């Protein structure tokens, strides 16, 4: 774990961890609200928005990307309403149609437009470019105190760090309203809590996390991290506080193990090339969920209480 690790692996692992946590935190509440697919939907809608924002501004700066994603989200909402009303189709189906169409449209836009100057193509949209986010200037661990070297950190790291910190702060500040309104919406309303705004804020936070993570790690990780760590964490405990802690542990574990397996795993089996880190991180999070389903201490409760309550 010397200079080479710091130069080639430290920043991708850190970005992977921060992106995973930023998505997993709001994912906890989305899963409990039975809105897990919103995370899926967001990561699909983000793509055409980002491409259009890039085509207009010619840059991949944070603000145009966010605005583009927000614009795409509005288009998605209008599309869903239109499909629901004109086609007389149930909301779930309308969502599925709108989100996949928008994503496919984003892929076509990407192919037809000249985005070769930046990391914006179909492959990166899906899998990100984690492996390429290396820290060229790093000489070793001492570079962590070297201002000049720090200035040369990949800008994706700073962006996802800010977003991850923002997500953590928002989760802490709005913990009680989030918890109360997720558990018992009408009680929350009777308390005078702005339930609609809380739900909207949660989705917006998830969208911001998705946009920030999308750039570095691609949509596969975003989709996986919204659902897998929180769902696995739910099987480990019966307390929300502990569940959220577990989800952070699982997200971190997925990022580290996924990156290591992607880089070294194929070599262990005699293969020559590394595989996609983003793909492997998402796979590891899925395996963790599978293990939690098989061995998690509280897996038996899921789905039981509902019949009783009905």
């Amino acid at each position: 774990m010397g200079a080479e690790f710091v130069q080639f692996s430290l920043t991708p692992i850190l970005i992977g961890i921060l992106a995973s946590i930023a998505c997993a935190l709001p994912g906890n509440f989305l899963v409990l609200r039975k809105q897990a697919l919103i995370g899926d939907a967001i990561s699909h809608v983000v793509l055409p928005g980002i491409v259009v924002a890039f085509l207009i501004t010619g840059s991949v700066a944070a603000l145009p990307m966010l605005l583009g994603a927000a614009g795409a989200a509005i288009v998605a909402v209008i599309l869903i309403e239109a499909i629901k009303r004109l086609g007389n189709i149930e909301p779930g189906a309308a969502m599925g149609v709108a989100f996949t169409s928008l994503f496919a449209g984003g892929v076509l836009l990407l192919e037809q437009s000249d985005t070769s100057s930046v990391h914006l193509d179909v492959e990166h949209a899906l899998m990100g470019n984690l492996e390429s986010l290396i820290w060229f200037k790093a000489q070793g661990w001492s570079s962590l105190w070297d201002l000049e070297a720090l200035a040369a950190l990949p800008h994706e790291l700073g962006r996802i760090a800010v977003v991850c910190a923002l997500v953590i702060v928002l989760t802490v500040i709005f913990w009680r309203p989030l918890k109360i309104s997720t558990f018992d919406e009408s009680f929350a309303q009777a308390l005078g809590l702005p339930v609609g705004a809380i739900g909207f804020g949660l989705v917006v936070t998830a969208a911001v996390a998705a946009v920030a993570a999308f750039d570095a790690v691609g949509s596969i990780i975003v989709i996986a991290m919204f659902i897998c760590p929180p769902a696995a964490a739910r099987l480990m405990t019966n307390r929300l506080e502990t569940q959220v802690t577990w989800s952070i542990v699982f997200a971190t574990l997925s990022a580290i193990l996924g990156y290591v397996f992607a880089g070294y795993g194929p070599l262990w089996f005699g293969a020559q090339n590394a595989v996609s880190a983003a793909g492997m991180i998402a796979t590891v999070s899925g395996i963790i969920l599978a293990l939690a389903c098989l061995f998690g201490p509280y897996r038996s409760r899921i789905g039981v209480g509902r019949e009783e309550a009905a």
Partner: protein
Amino acid sequence: MDMRTPLALAANNGHIPRDIAKIDAPLAVRGMTVSYGEKPAIFSVDATFEAGKMTAIIGPNGAGKSTLLKAALGVIPSLSGEVSVFGNPLGVARDRIAYVPQRASVDWDFPTTVIDVVMMGLYRKTGLLSRLTGAHRAHAMACLDRVGMADFADRQIGQLSGGQQQRVFLSRALAQEADLYLLDEPFAGVDAATERAIIDVLAGLKADGKAVVCVHHDLATVSRYFDNVFLINVRRIAEGPVTAVFTPENLHATYGGRLATSHIDQLDLVAGA
């Protein structure tokens, strides 16, 4: 100005002041109309609920009983109507209301414990960030004790029986230390012991001068449990003391053909007025 008490006004069916600002009852609703689709769920409903009384909201399925409570609390939007809580607008007097939603309206698989749910009742006091202290926990435990659930404080809520879940909900309402308690079907699907425990707690609240309003289904227990009754079937049918209003005529008017005459005869009703 009319100097009669709200009770007299309410009992005097139909003669109710339209000016809601003149009513200082725990809860007064005027001209409330709510619609989920084309047809109104409740239509131009007036209601006045009194302090120191237990009131049952009675009516057939789909009559708008829960809707009336939810609309009064602003949980669902109303097309029209005014609400006054202790003579104030809802927004000013919210802290004085405790609401117990239908037990089946929440997911009991939610990862939380009994004591955590009761502490949710402290939200208006603790706000976003202030620390929960030992005093808060002691208060929550005392509220659990009042419904006989203190031994279950650290259980996951999904492990409780239906009756125990209902008691936890009531305990959360007690933690709010409110003056007006609105309960949506508190006796639905609970065991006899729980029904007894809930009634005892509600009677205690009444004795303390609080107002208690329950959406209620069991016509057979109305006279035993409640002081007042509010009969509704989309429109208000009647409201007032059980002894005056809980009559076969009013029940027929409320339930129409859905309630057999033989069934009404078995009830402990006031003789036809």
